[in-house]
């Protein structure tokens, strides 16, 4: 007799094999967060080199004070959606501040970054429309497309020519297509030539959505992301991002130069049917956004240590992602080897991300590190030394 649970056999097998490592990578418990770059894991202080806390703002006094004040003034939660329960003033203010930050007329908040992609795509495209997705696009972009009911086509990762071919094949449908890419790809830390994607989209009249989840705060002169770094803020149609990385909170947003974004509030089911962000989260996000704008030195610091980490790991003879960025990925020759390296790094007091198929973008196994502006030089050297120990005597690739 079949059971609904039969489909979990493969997951159970995977869980059991991960558990044999000692510490299951999916079940790591941070017993205590010590500061932006350190937590107690398995009873000892551990350097966090895999938490996407790019600007190191999670313990910033201004953000904590803002959150505390909002808790006292507005309570712990909103207990429902904005459409049903109403808007808190801080929801509206944060939307205004995000829009102003980009120089766009409209912004829209979502309760998570995942929800931002889901909600934007499900509102913007629908059955009969076309979405062209980068092959390495995040699961939230895929899921948003599936929720929308649009026809989904993939093009080769960060390859404008591959996109061009597929838009050409669409014929007249190309002018109502949406192209979705990312500003900084989260696993390998690579980024596309965005202006070339703008050229292709404009050639066919397609719209361009850029997910700047990992590039908000990390790229661009003012931290607006790759769209700013490449000078194409006036050519991109929609930017989606998250508050859960550089801004150290949770939540997401969509901004656009198109006034029609305001209509998404009436059609986006992930927006309409989700409880709105709680007041303390919105307050700390507003404070963090202010710091992002006022303290470009955090971004400069981030890239300085990212360069040091990339070069330090490269000097160990390791094969890394293709570009220097705050995400540095070490390629491993097998999933088993990657698991052993990850385990050894944790024993050495460094927490990283284990990426194995099918989660990896090109089928490879990786140790992924992400840096924070709050990491000290000493911590960066400790990370390099720990990777050296964990990979000693073996060629990772």
């Amino acid at each position, binding site marked *: 007799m079949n059971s609904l649970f039969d489909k979990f056999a493969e997951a159970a097998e995977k869980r059991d094999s991960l558990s044999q490592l000692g510490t299951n990578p999916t079940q790591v418990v941070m017993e205590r967060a010590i500061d932006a770059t350190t937590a107690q894991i398995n009873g000892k202080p551990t350097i966090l080199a895999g938490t996407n806390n790019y600007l190191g703002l999670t313990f910033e006094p201004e953000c904590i004070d803002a959150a505390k004040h909002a808790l006292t003034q507005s309570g712990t939660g909103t207990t429902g959606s904005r459409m049903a329960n109403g808007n808190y003033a801080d929801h509206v203010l944060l939307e205004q501040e995000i829009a102003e930050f980009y120089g766009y007329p409209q912004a829209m908040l979502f309760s998570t970054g995942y929800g931002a992609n889901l909600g934007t795509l499900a509102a913007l495209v629908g059955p009969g429309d076309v979405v062209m997705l980068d*092959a390495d696009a995040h699961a939230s972009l895929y899921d948003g497309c599936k929720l929308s009911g649009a026809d989904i*086509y993939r093009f080769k990762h960060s390859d404008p020519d591959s996109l061009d071919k*597929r838009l050409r094949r669409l014929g007249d449908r190309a002018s109502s297509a949406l192209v979705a890419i990312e500003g900084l790809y989260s696993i390998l830390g690579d980024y596309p030539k965005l202006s070339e994607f703008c050229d292709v989209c404009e050639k066919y009249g397609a719209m361009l959505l850029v997910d700047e989840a990992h590039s908000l705060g990390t790229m661009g002169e003012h931290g607006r992301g790759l769209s700013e770094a490449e000078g194409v803020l006036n050519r991109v149609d929609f930017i989606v991002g998250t508050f859960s990385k550089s801004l150290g909170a949770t939540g997401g947003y969509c901004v656009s130069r198109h006034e029609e974004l305001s209509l998404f509030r009436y059609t986006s089911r992930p927006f309409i049917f989700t409880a709105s962000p709680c007041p303390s989260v919105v307050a700390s996000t507003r404070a963090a956004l202010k710091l992002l704008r006022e303290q470009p030195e955090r971004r400069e610091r981030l890239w300085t240590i990212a360069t040091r980490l990339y070069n330090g790991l490269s000097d160990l003879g390791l094969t890394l992602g293709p570009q220097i960025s705050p995400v540095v990925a070490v390629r491993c020759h097998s999933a088993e080897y990657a698991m052993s390296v990850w385990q050894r790094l944790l024993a050495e007091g460094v927490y990283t991300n284990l990426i194995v198929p*099918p989660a990896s973008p*090109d*089928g490879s196994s990786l140790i992924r590190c992400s840096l924070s502006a709050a990491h000290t030089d000493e911590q960066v050297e400790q990370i390099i030394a720990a990777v050296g120990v964990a990979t000693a005597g073996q060629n990772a690739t």
Partner: protein
Amino acid sequence: MSDNTSSTSPISVHSALETILRGFLTDDAQTLNQTTLINSLGLESVVVLEFVTDVEDHFDINIDLDSLANIQTLNDLAEAVIAQGVE
């Protein structure tokens, strides 16, 4: 239709698919036929999608992800290619 498939027929579609697929296989001696299950070849899912991308470019067609979900064998893929007007 692309320049390199100017005289395609159902047979040549099958032949082209096999040729493209062999570029992704590590075992040259792997037996392939029309009923070969693509997911039985030990390829990672991302590699299967790379294979499909190359198929699209070879025949100058687009195959949407929903259609891909129903493709299990090389014959299924050939039918999807032919359904796009490739002869």
